[in-house]
């Protein structure tokens, strides 16, 4: 049970001089149950990449396998694939359209051809999973706050019971608390259900706390693919391509250079604190 990308290339603009290679020879294995951060600046190919995972975009070269099957085989059921690999787009609240929250969340499971009862059970469970209170279920989605709308939109994808959840910039435009709430909720969901989560972001700081693996994209290629601690060791190279390691990385590097015997591969504030306290003998 996994997603495998085998030499995936994607060129758009066809055969004209304007053709752009959005993905260059991408090889990835995404096993079940991982929590992955996909990082890259705008135009690095990360959004194009995730749209390949559920077959929205067909690669111009290479293959993609979901649970061992080539998803672009003639008789492969794309609709089923899309229910198994749930993709939450950027600003997903802009895709809400139904008269109330609950009906909107039902849209996905209903499209799968499930019974009314099963659809509603799933919608209810999904709304619970994103932590939305019952009071909001029969309100118009357009009357909710920004953070709540986003939860509803995420629930809309969760209601399809995907094995893999891909979220493209789920915190864009939210305030710091709203950001933390959404990310905590996703982490909790991951813990409880064990699904694979791929978090697309341009902020190392946001994902470092949660993920076990970071894939860095640059100009359509995979630049790094490792644990956060290992990836952040390349903070100079990251800077060169317009990304930055979390501020703690810089703090530890600065301390180390000034002769303090600290480890430099810490990724979170908590780890940094323990590490500094250790050198102070506390």
């Amino acid at each position, binding site marked *: 049970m996994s997603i495998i990308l085998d030499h995936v290339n994607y060129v*758009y*603009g066809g055969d004209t001089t*304007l053709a752009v290679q959005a993905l260059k020879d991408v090889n990835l294995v995404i096993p079940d149950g991982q929590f992955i951060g996909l990082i890259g600046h705008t135009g690095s190919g990360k959004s194009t990449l995730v*749209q390949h995972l*559920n077959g*929205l975009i067909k690669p111009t070269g290479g293959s993609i396998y979901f649970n061992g099957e080539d998803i672009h085989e003639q008789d492969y059921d794309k*609709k089923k694939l*899309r*229910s198994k690999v*749930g*993709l939450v*787009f950027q600003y*997903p609240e*802009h*895709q*809400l*359209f139904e008269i109330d929250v609950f009906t909107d969340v039902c*849209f*996905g499971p*209903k*499209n*799968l051809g499930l019974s009314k009862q099963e659809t509603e059970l799933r919608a209810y469970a999904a709304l619970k999973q994103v932590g939305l209170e019952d009071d909001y279920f029969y309100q118009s989605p*357009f009357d909710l706050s920004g953070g709540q709308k986003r939860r509803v939109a995420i629930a*809309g*994808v969760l209601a*399809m019971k995907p094995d893999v959840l891909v979220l493209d910039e789920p915190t864009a435009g939210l305030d710091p608390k709203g950001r933390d709430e959404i990310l905590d909720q996703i982490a909790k969901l991951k813990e409880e259900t064990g699904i694979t989560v791929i978090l697309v972001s341009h902020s190392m700081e946001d994902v470092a706390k949660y993920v076990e693996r970071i894939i860095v994209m640059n100009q359509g290629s995979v630049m790094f693919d490792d644990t956060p601690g290992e990836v952040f060791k390349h903070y100079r190279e990251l800077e060169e391509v317009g990304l930055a390691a979390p501020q703690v990385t810089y703090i530890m590097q600065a301390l180390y250079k000034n002769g303090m015997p600290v480890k430099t591969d810490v990724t979170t504030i908590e780890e940094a604190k323990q590490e500094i306290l250790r050198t102070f003998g506390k």
Partner: protein
Amino acid sequence: MLRDITLGQYYQTDSVIHKLDPRVKLVATICFIISLFVVKSWVGYVAAAIFLAVMIKLSNVPFKYMVKGMRAIVFILLITVVFNLFLTPGEVLVSVWKLKITREGLQLAVMMAVRLSFLIVGSSVMTLTTTPNSLTDGMEKLMKPLKIFKVPVHEVAMMMSIALRFIPILLEETDKIMKAQIARGADFESGNLVKKAKAMVPLLVPLFISAFRRANDLAMAMEARCYRGGENRTKMKPLKYASRDRIAYGVLAVYFAVCIVIRIYL
């Protein structure tokens, strides 16, 4: 990508025609279209063809771009030709079953085909050499006299240029919403017409909401930048006739006169 679609099929290059004032090009296009209906003889069409050929040559736009515009109207062209061919009474040339092709019909059909193709190619010379922006500017200036009749000329021009700015953005948004709904299992392709129409709701509702949100934001941004209609507004790029524009008007007048002469004497 949808974002790269440039509207009005402007072809970027350097030529005399590109440099002409948009008003000249607008007036010339209208005159050319009229001239196609003024002339009635083959000599007239030869004159129009020469005029058009010279303009295409001067515009430096490859001929295949002109013909591209034709593709869209091939169907209309065929219908016109067929109707004229079979439904014009006169001296019968060929008779197949109940359908009769007459000499007059044949003449008329060929004439209509020539007229229509010239009309399309002629207008595309204008759209290929003029940016949508200067085209709106030109229209605004040309239609200024209509203000006396309370026609909101400035507002119409402003609306057109805002539409041109937002069409690529909304197209891209359509693409994005569509993909997002497909990711939720929506199906925009299969089913009969009713089912297809119903399937559009999850696309259209978010699109409309977004369009209104953008309109609201834009109106606020425009007001914040002191926009208050066309009154007392100055222009960053005011339209001014240069000597080449006056020469162009001269050439146009000569062409039009020739067409009238041909109509009367030939």
